């Protein structure tokens, strides 16, 4: 039984953490072949070959694959599908864009955001913003799956897979990349950070969001945000944690001025230790917090930053 795993490649570079976590999930299913696709993907392919548990790497380089547009990337994966029983990827926005398209091209269902592998056909996944966990058994001949990275440990290094170059599928030419607006940050990446400090509407303004950033920097943490903080313009969209944002499970999650709506909890309640700082003692965030501090964040956060 063979598994084809779409590596997360951004601007020619392998996103090691997301890819290595998906490798761990995929190893339970069979022999793992990694596909590194991009305008340049050779370096990403070489990096993927070193992940323990990868038996083969396919590198597809073509301008049409440069920005992970769904149509050419899905066409390439579908053209390779004959050799594999499972087609998988880490549940990133790229994979969520591409893999459902692959599944439909193969006339099979997609299994999104799987959190556990029960057997080769059976998977657990959260539904209703994580308020229920469903175990689903697929009757499809091929299984197309995205794995929620927060639920799997990254596979280690030490592999030495063979690398083979393949060509891209025909580009249907339906869409074109125009531009990226990527926030540059020296902070750890949200989904792989050991500590996350998130701010909500309670922070009140973009300027005061610096309080969250300063605390994060003191802790060497990534910065996150609630939807309300993003919608209000305090934080960038890629920092949103929740049902429709990123799912994180760090060692420590600090929620500041966040009420704890179920849609937010869906993205962080598997964190190991949760701290909540909120002036409303009734806020639902306290129900999931290990340590709750009922306080005005404008007093508590500077004090915490200073004393740590």
């Amino acid at each position: 039984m063979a598994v084809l795993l779409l590596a997360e490649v951004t601007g020619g570079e392998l996103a090691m953490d997301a890819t290595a976590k998906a490798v761990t999930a995929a190893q339970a299913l069979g022999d793992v072949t990694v596909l590194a696709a991009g305008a340049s993907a050779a370096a990403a392919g070489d990096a993927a070959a070193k992940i323990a548990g990868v038996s083969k790497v396919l590198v597809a380089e073509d301008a049409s694959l440069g920005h992970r547009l769904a149509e050419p990337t899905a066409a390439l994966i579908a053209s390779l599908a004959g050799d594999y029983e499972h087609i998988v990827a880490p549940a990133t926005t790229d994979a969520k864009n591409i893999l459902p398209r692959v599944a439909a091209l193969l006339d099979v269902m997609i299994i999104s955001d799987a959190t556990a592998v029960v057997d080769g056909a059976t998977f657990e996944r959260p539904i209703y913003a994580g308020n229920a966990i469903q175990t689903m058994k697929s009757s499809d001949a091929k299984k197309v799956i995205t794995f929620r990275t927060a639920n799997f440990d990254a596979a280690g290094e030490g592999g030495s897979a063979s690398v083979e170059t393949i060509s891209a599928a025909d580009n249907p030419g339906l869409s074109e990349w125009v531009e990226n607006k990527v926030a540059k940050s020296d902070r750890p990446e949200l989904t792989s950070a050991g500590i996350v400090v998130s701010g909500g509407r309670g922070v009140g303004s973009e300027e005061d969001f610096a309080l969250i950033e300063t605390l994060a920097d003191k802790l060497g943490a990534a910065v996150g945000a609630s939807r309300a903080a993003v919608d209000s313009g305090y934080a960038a969209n890629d920092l949103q944690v929740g049902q429709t944002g990123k799912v994180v499970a760090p060692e420590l999650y600090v929620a500041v001025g966040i009420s704890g709506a179920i849609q937010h909890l869906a993205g962080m309640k598997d964190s190991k230790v949760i701290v909540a700082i909120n002036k409303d003692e009734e806020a639902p965030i306290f129900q999931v917090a290990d340590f709750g501090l009922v306080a005005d964040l404008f007093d508590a956060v500077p004090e915490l930053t200073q004393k740590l």
Partner: protein
Amino acid sequence: MKALVPVKRVIDYNVKVRVKADGSGVDLANVKMSMNPFDEIAVEEAIRLKEAGKVDEIVAVSIGVKQAQETLRTALAMGADRAILVVATDDVHADIEPLAVAKILKAIVDEEQPGLVLCGKQAIDNDMNATGQMLSALLGWSQATFASEVDVEGNSAKITREVDGGLQTISVKMPAIVTVDLRLNEPRYASLPNIMKAKKKPLDEKSAADYGVDVSPRLEVVKTEEPAQRAAGITVGSVDELIEKLKEAGAV
């Protein structure tokens, strides 16, 4: 140009979800149901495109139980022109999978020939995030997911997408499938006069069999469980105590 907007009837996002004791799913009997919030955003965007003169007719489609009729009336009250209800099950607990929904939508697109399909990026019940992508594959159309800005200009559309790294703008050829994200717009409320008017707007009722689509699920639900509960935490009295506790827990 005609715009097609699929809308799903789901549990209201404010309702506390309960897993059924027999593990077969989530209890939906006597629970408040609403239009999937992402689909409301899609309906709103279609209306704004119509107001801007870029769309001339909006057709809302819902696939599921007969009660999804109410969801379609909401879309009509917001400003859709007509609606198509495809009854695919009579069990309120049955979820029609995205692949089957996409197949029915493809048949409707073949009949209606819209220039644009606007879908919600995911339904807040099954959280699959798949129907738009699947429909796009079946039609061989361009696809732009997770849109936070939609700019239709003649034969193409410029779409800004919310992606893991930030924002990505792409240009897609029309006809296109666009799936919408939360920050695209704020949906309007239907006014009382518009709710009354919506009752008279055309609503066609069809069945999945009319489109020759087999809706039997590919994924069998083995069981549904409550997520693991977190152990109760403690309230700390000061920042000093918080730091002490975090040190004890080895978290800092």
